[in-house]
């Protein structure tokens, strides 16, 4: 057989069903990545709209665009949406799903159906939480939802129940994704790709997945306790009956601080892919950067109480957490220096993706510097709950997580669509967003130091906060315009852009060795990998082409995928991967029914719905891979 014949045979074997059914039943990581992308984009728009309404409210003193209770719902939903329904699913769900198998030389995730389940559960949880907004019962106690404000006495109704159940539901999706990514990265690498030959992107996603896996249970436990307190009458957070309100804060931040790194470490991974491509140079200090990516998340588990310096903890505790917070600076800084040195020693071409990464480094350093200031406990106690904190974490979350997402959108747009974006509008969109976000977030430092508190729906005149707030609001509109320009560029490019070819950037990793958009089987030949910059190893790529002509390493006896040993990349076995399946969406629906019935206190009905979950799982496991 010829190379083309092998490719056609694989194409026939791996093809999804046509039409909508192909998307509903898909187990293809690329399709699931795209589903994640579109869903998170819609939710990003919702979270952005909430932010714009808030900024419009604050444009001047004593505005009444919305009332205080609506404002509470807006900032809570904004936080929830951006963290749980935009950044995590965008980085892990969209970028991770689409790119990880491509970079690892794999044909799919380790558990493709579970991957589909993650998506459908995520979609259902998004719909679940946003239903509350349309019912007028949106969560309204802030995204960290402190008790006693969030308990049944002070927040009656279903708002916080939506929060608890929505968070647990969403957490199931993220945990499944995290476990799937870990096993994929450990086991599904192309044979021969030992750990030191794995791209830094994958190290970053490995770190983020470990973070999610170990951080989410704490949040789940916390929200389970709160749900029980509110609906069953337990007393976890009720001081009068021996509970503790600080327990909520501890558990929340044991999740919440690793969460910050979970948000930004995938963005580090995106940066470590874009930088080599546009400097045409390997990243400086590869092993240090790889270890630093893992260490950031690891140390991130030991710093949670720095969110609680104002709660009156013992001095020893406070000092310990301040010191731990100082330690986490080290791996972060290693990466910043490595990126900067790569710029300096390479041949940096500031195309749009690299501009976003440069902007990201600027914002990350700025946000990191204000972050270090919080170590000084007396200072922290002064600025707790002021706009200074808002400024800090928006520099981190918008600057260090969203900028690389935008850069990554431009960078991989040719790979996903097969078309190039337009460069000049791309650069313009960067500058608009960069100027807009700095106008938006920088003055928040100043009003924060001047004493303006977060979460107040308006503020009186005469305090001197008006001009800064006006600038912030203008900045928010400018940022919005920049994002619209960015999206418009991509939409127009999708239809009119020049053809990209397989490798427009001479990128470093394996996804650039295959056609754009990638075929459904990803790799006709399981690629040979002898460094972390596989696409630059021309001899290996040449060898892959020869092998395809001879039918070596094609694995075309079915939906086949090689499996390797976790560290050294020894070839362990060849397994048959599952085909399209209706069960992930059915199972997600059954789970959604359980959560709705929990919300409505229909305990008996919930037991029947649990039986539905068991039945769906039976169906799922009815056909074994080799039988289908």
């Amino acid at each position, binding site marked *: 057989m010829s190379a083309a014949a092998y490719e056609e045979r694989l194409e026939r074997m791996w093809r999804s069903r046509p039409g909508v059914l192909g998307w509903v039943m898909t187990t293809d990581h690329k399709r699931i990545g795209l589903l994640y992308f579109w869903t998170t984009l819609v939710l990003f728009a919702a979270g952005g709209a909430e932010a714009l309404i808030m900024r419009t409210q604050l444009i001047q003193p004593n505005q009444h665009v919305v009332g205080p209770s609506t404002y509470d719902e807006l900032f809570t939903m904004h936080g929830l949406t951006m963290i749980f329904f935009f950044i995590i699913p965008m980085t892990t769900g969209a970028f991770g799903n689409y790119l990880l198998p491509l970079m690892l030389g794999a044909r799919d995730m*380790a558990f493709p159906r579970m991957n589909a389940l993650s998506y459908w559960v995520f979609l259902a949880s998004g719909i679940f939480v946003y239903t509350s907004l349309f019912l007028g019962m949106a969560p309204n106690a802030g995204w960290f939802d402190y008790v006693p404000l969030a308990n049944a006495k002070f927040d009656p109704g279903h708002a916080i129940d939506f929060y608890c159940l929505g968070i647990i539901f969403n957490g199931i999706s993220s945990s499944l994704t995290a476990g799937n990514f870990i*096993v994929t990265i450990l086991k599904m690498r192309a044979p021969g790709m030992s750990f030191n030959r794995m791209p830094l992107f994958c190290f970053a996603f490995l770190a983020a997945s470990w973070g999610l*896996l170990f951080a989410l*249970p704490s949040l789940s436990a916390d929200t389970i306790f709160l749900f029980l307190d509110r609906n069953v009458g337990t007393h976890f957070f009720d001081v009068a009956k*021996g509970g503790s309100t600080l327990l909520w804060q501890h558990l929340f931040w044991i999740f919440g601080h690793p969460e910050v790194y979970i948000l930004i470490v995938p963005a580090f991974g995106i940066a470590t892919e874009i930088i080599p491509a546009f400097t045409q140079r390997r990243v400086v200090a590869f092993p240090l950067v790889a270890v630093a990516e893992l260490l950031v998340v690891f140390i991130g588990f030991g710093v949670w109480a720095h969110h609680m310096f104002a709660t009156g903890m013992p001095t020893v505790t406070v000092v310990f957490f301040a010191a731990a917070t100082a330690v986490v600076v080290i791996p972060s800084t290693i990466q910043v220096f490595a990126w900067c040195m790569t710029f300096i020693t390479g041949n940096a071409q500031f195309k749009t993706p690299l501009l976003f990464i440069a902007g990201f480094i600027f914002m990350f350093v700025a946000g990191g510097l204000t972050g270090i200031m919080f170590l000084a406990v007396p200072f922290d106690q002064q600025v707790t709950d002021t706009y200074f904190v808002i400024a800090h974490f928006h520099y981190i979350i918008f600057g260090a997580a969203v900028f690389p997402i935008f850069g990554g959108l431009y960078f991989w747009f040719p790979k996903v669509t097969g078309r190039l974006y337009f460069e000049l509008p791309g650069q313009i969109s960067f500058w608009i967003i960069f100027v807009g976000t700095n106008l938006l977030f920088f003055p928040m430092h100043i009003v924060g130091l001047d004493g303006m508190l977060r979460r107040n729906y308006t503020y009186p005149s005469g305090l001197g906060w008006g001009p800064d707030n006006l600038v912030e609001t203008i900045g928010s509109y400018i940022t919005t315009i920049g994002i619209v320009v960015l999206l418009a560029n991509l939409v127009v490019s999708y239809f009119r852009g020049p053809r990209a070819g397989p490798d427009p950037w001479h990128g470093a990793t394996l996804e650039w060795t295959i056609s754009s958009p990638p075929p459904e089987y990803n790799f006709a030949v399981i690629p040979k990998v002898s460094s972390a910059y596989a696409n630059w190893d021309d001899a290996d790529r040449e060898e892959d082409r020869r092998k395809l002509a*001879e039918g070596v390493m094609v694995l075309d006896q079915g939906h086949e995928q090689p499996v390797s040993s976790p560290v050294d990349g020894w070839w362990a076995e060849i397994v048959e991967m599952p085909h399209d399946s209706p069960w992930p969406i059915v199972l997600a629906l059954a789970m959604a029914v359980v959560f709705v019935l929990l919300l409505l206190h229909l305990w008996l009905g919930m037991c029947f719905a649990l039986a539905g979950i068991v039945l769906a799982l039976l169906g799922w496991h009815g056909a074994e891979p*080799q039988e289908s």
Partner: protein
Amino acid sequence: MADYVAGGVPERLVPRTTEARNAGDAMTLAGRRRGPSVAFWGMATVVASEATLFGTFIGSYYYLRFSALHWPPPGTPEPRVVVPLVMAGVLATTSLPMQLAAIAARRARLWSARALLVWALAVQCGYLAYEIHDYVDQLHRSAPQDNAYSSIYYTLLGADHVHVAIGILLVVWLLWKLLRGLTMYRLNAVQVIAFYWHAVNLLTLIVIGVLLSVTL
């Protein structure tokens, strides 16, 4: 090219494990596979996640305990010591038949595997039946709505029972699958579910230990 080596092994020597349709094939191919299956790693992440959840529960238990004056609060009965300990010990013994079943399946001894699983299942069901009875019985004397001690007590114990119940469902499903012979898929399942049970047994011992620590 024909003997091209990737990841240390020529392509033709790498086992296509999911092709195994009978016990003998599964045994041979599992022997040629390097390291545990992908499914095993998947279960390892599940266990890691669940262990963290229980770690959080137990952490909360001690956080509440050390910020309370009286633990348990006056009027709330202390848990019984001997029977729960014995029951947890009995449950822990099922690790033996579960592991032996995994070994038997690995050696293609289908009937031994089935018999060992039935043995384990009988003990597990007996344990869960007694514990549910005991749980309901305790609810007559104190309720999770009484105070924070009771809240965390019943939550922790209940969460452990849920994990035992899930394990029982898995073993029932496994026996049903094994009725139709052994494939690689089912061999992986036996090994993975045995691993799950080791984790649940250890978890139960720890949870009971934590809950009984109040009587020390």
